[in-house]
């Protein structure tokens, strides 16, 4: 090897090593720092802005946007990295929605600094125009990967996924919605079509992996589980689609005593959680990294 080639190899080797160095150092420092992320989540809050009444037969005096805000603020004060997510159906259920058509929900969720939300069937209860009017007051992101919004105005504001960097975590968040046919009057979602949620999920997960997300969250309004085992649900999603770490669900108003863990064929664990309805619970998930695994190609 002549001197020039040797120098070239030296430079290339050092350059590639140098480019890798920050990640390499990061890996060591990460281990020491114990990466941590708090994910807070709600679903099916259904315009329940005040606490439930004192004579409520199941959850008297529970919930309320102010109490929720206080709890969220406490988490934010105690933790550096917090994500706040919602799995849909933030509209409909109290006179606040009938009277103010969703604008108050959007203003309050913005004040609580939600990061990403997906859409439930009731979020179409005032149609596309009503939704667009209300979302003017939202400063958070809307995600859905299995509705084709076509030429509707919603195509401009709802994206399949969002990627958010929170410390060591590059979080990919995507949304899945239930089939609106039969649930929502046709006129309210004219121009929007429904795609298979599992195929849509698989496609969006590919994109999130290509973008090097190290935590993939699905905000799902499919519902936790159905008697008809073939109907798309969070449990089926966890069983059938590879690559999701966490499914935060809604629609079935399921109060879960504990999260569900689904172990896929390759050993990957998917966690499912849902917190009932009316904002009487706040889901709180502490994510930590047990170990770092670098995917390396074998060099022959």
């Amino acid at each position, binding site marked *: 090897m002549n001197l020039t080639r040797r120098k070239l190899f030296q430079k290339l080797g050092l350059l590639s090593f140098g480019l890798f160095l920050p990640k390499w150092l990061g890996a060591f420092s990460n281990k020491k720092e114990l990466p941590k992320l708090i994910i807070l989540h709600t679903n099916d809050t259904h315009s329940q802005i005040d606490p439930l*009444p004192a004579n409520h037969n199941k959850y008297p005096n529970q919930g309320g946007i102010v109490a929720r805000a206080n709890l969220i*603020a406490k988490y934010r004060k105690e933790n550096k990295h917090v994500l706040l997510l919602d799995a849909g159906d933030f509209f409909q259920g109290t*006179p606040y929605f009938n009277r103010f058509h969703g604008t108050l929900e959007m203003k309050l969720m913005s004040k609580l600094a939600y990061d990403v939300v997906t859409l439930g069937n009731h979020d179409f209860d005032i149609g596309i125009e009503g939704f667009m009017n209300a979302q003017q007051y939202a400063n958070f992101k809307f995600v859905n990967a299995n509705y084709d919004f076509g030429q509707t105005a919603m195509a401009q504001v709802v994206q399949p996924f969002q990627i958010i960097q929170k410390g060591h975590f590059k979080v990919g968040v995507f949304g899945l919605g239930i089939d609106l046919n*039969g649930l929502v009057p046709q006129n309210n979602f004219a121009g929007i079509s429904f795609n298979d949620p599992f195929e849509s999920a698989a496609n969006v997960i590919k994109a999130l992996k290509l973008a090097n997300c*190290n935590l993939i969250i699905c905000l799902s309004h499919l519902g936790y589980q159905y008697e008809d085992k073939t109907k798309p649900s969070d449990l089926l999603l966890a069983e059938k689609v590879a690559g999701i770490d966490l499914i935060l669900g809604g629609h079935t108003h399921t109060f879960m005593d504990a*999260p569900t863990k689904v172990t896929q064929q390759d050993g990957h664990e998917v*966690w499912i959680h849902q917190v009932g309805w009316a904002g009487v619970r706040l889901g709180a998930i502490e994510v930590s990294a047990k170990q770092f695994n670098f995917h390396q190609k074998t060099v022959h």
Partner: protein
Amino acid sequence: MTKYLWYMIIGASLMACSARFTPTFQIKAHPIFGEPNTDSALVQILQPYQDTLHQEFDAIIASTKEALYVSRPTSNLMNWCADAVWSSQTANKRMSEPVICLLNTGGLRSSFGAGNLSLADFYKLMPFDNRLVWVHLPVAKIADIEYYLLKSGGEPIANCVFQNEKLLIESLTANHQYIWVLTSDYLANGGDKMTFFIGLEKQETNILLRDVFIEMAKKQGELILDAQPRYFR
């Protein structure tokens, strides 16, 4: 030479891969209890809306001695709602064909605790602006309703009982070819997969179901309850 080649290959291959880790999760659900309004900025946004709402919706319009709830297959609130619709439409009419009421359990969105009931409570029970419609249903299609009820596990019904997988309508005779079904425009258009209504003759009332409930509650003062089951497996 070999040393630099290894640097380059290892460096390049590692660069191409992302830092992955095995995340672990600790997951819990916090109950949220009413707390004082400590977030002043939030309260500032909320207050004018709350004031308007309380002014317009807090009026007490009725009361109930017992808690009313919505629960399949049959419940006191499901019965009350179906009865309210049925009696509001049939009280002063003599119909040659049987009239029943069929609503949907999913459309009743709230329960009532014992005590006073405000206008807001009825908006929570029926938040949707669904209108009451009459649907002229061929007797032959009753089997579709029976199949639906069997699969769904129970919906609010009035002037009929579901027993042994059959819808028993007392006033139905062999001479009848049609019955009238009182329902919502949402269901009459096939909502909640009640596709058996699609394409049938309909008569609009332009009355909101919610208003039917509100007027009936005002009329009764203290809600008249019927907790007798109407759905037998």
